[in-house]
């Protein structure tokens, strides 16, 4: 009896991306991510992590190779959500209006969307700040609003580009916990980019280590820790081992001599 594996949510097969400037951002990258998975791309700057996200989001087109993603397949409106490194909120709009934006662009009126926006705000803990303006929020709160906006369209895939890099450790840990909670609740395929090893270990089921110049995947580590993950995981020996393994892999990534093609 054949066990049919469900199709991955997004997939790259030998995908390359060369920019018009001549820079080869990605060289023959292959990865796949399925529903409910939390995958992290870990690597130094310039290794093409952001480019992978942008390809999957449909903001760039691959130069060669195969790319399958909800955006590329147009299977459902707004099946893709993106969280940038900056909160990227509209400063002139209230938190409510910011979170409402994706639904608004779809054509939903404020009244129709009200319930969903309120629910999204509640789930990220911002229900009291619906009418505040971004300028009045702290960094962590702005990021929560950004995530609420990403989640409001019930996306199939969540792409996050170093979203917590600008936050302090305390806020980052809290948001890590909350992010896992939201992601597990909705079973969204999440592709997360960071260069913080501890964060990668805590959040992901798989970590793909990437090397730079040209961008490619050089190592994959599976984190065999069940969800939900408790804060105590961070203090365990397993955690330290994983971190060490990734650090070694990263060290190799930066040591690798340039592969000329």
């Amino acid at each position: 009896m054949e066990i049919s594996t469900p199709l991955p949510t997004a997939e790259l097969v030998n995908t390359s991306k060369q920019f018009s400037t001549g820079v080869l951002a990605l060289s023959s990258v292959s990865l796949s991510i399925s529903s409910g998975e939390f995958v992290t791309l870990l690597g130094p700057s310039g290794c093409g992590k952001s480019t992978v996200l942008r390809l999957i989001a449909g903001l760039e087109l691959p130069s060669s190779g195969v790319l399958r993603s909800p955006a590329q397949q147009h299977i459902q409106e707004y099946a893709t959500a993106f969280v940038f490194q900056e909160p990227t909120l509209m400063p002139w709009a209230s938190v409510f209006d910011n979170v409402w934006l994706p639904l608004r662009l779809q054509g939903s009126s404020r009244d129709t969307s009200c319930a969903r926006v309120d629910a999204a705000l509640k789930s990220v803990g911002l229900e009291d700040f619906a009418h505040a303006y971004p300028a009045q929020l702290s960094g962590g709160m702005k990021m929560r609003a950004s995530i609420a906006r990403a989640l409001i369209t019930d996306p199939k895939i969540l792409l996050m580009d170093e979203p917590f890099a600008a936050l302090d450790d305390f806020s980052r840990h809290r948001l890590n916990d909350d992010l896992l909670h939201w992601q597990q609740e909705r079973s969204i395929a999440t592709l997360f980019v960071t260069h913080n090893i501890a964060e990668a270990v805590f959040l992901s089921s798989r970590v793909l280590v990437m090397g730079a110049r040209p961008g490619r995947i050089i190592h994959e580590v599976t984190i065999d820790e069940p969800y939900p993950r408790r804060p105590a995981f961070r203090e365990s020996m397993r955690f330290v081992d994983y971190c060490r393994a990734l650090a070694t892999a990263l060290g190799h990534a930066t040591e690798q001599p340039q592969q000329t093609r």
Partner: protein
Amino acid sequence: MKRILHKLLPALTLLTFLLLWELGVRWANIPAYTLPTPSVIVLSLIDHWPSLALSWWFTIKITLGALFLACLGGVLIASVFSLSPQIERAFFPIAVVLQVTPIVAIAPLMLIYIESTTAALLLCAWIVAFFPILSNTVTGLRATDRNLVELFRLYRASPWQRLVLLRAPAALPYFLTGLKISGGLSLIGAVTAEMVAGSAGRQTGLASRILEASFRTETPKMFAALALLVLTGVIIFLLFNALSRLLLGGWHSSEQSHTVDHNS
């Protein structure tokens, strides 16, 4: 006490200046036809109030009319420019030419070619006023956060949605800066045009009163008209400052005067 003093500071400075002026002229015995004292000017203002008030109203109408048209023209043209880089490259030089041509030179020509004096004055004031709005709005429309643009792309926003929901609000602070500049300029343009080219009868503003008083050597009246002009400029400035505070106060750094609360 300190707060009250702080609020009244501009008014007190002005009053001191006027007082020094009054006393200085009296002490030096300067004749009124050379430099009148503030008290003489106020008397002249009251004396000639009917004709000055009428002229003041006319100048205000031209100024606000030109400003309104400058907003309309500036924003429209800026929007077109933002939608088509080719059109912008083609026509921006023309806008620059319009900006740098001195009104003093073209105003007389305008009045020759255009039948209606009011229309000619409006046009001259418009030419002076529209460029800052155009230039600032163009910059503002371009200054949108790149990530927000990507976000809108991601959610497949239509060009109209992008303009109304993203670019326009992003451009608002820049537009308001241009507006503040143009407020004063449209007044100057209206006055300069009328001064250089002149007009007669009921269709005349404060500039004509100034000229008339100058030709008839009625110096206090000239200063009175001048005072009204200055007052108009100040009111425009204050008005647009308040508007800017109203529209941007909640969120733009230019209007933030207090520290942001930090709640996590």
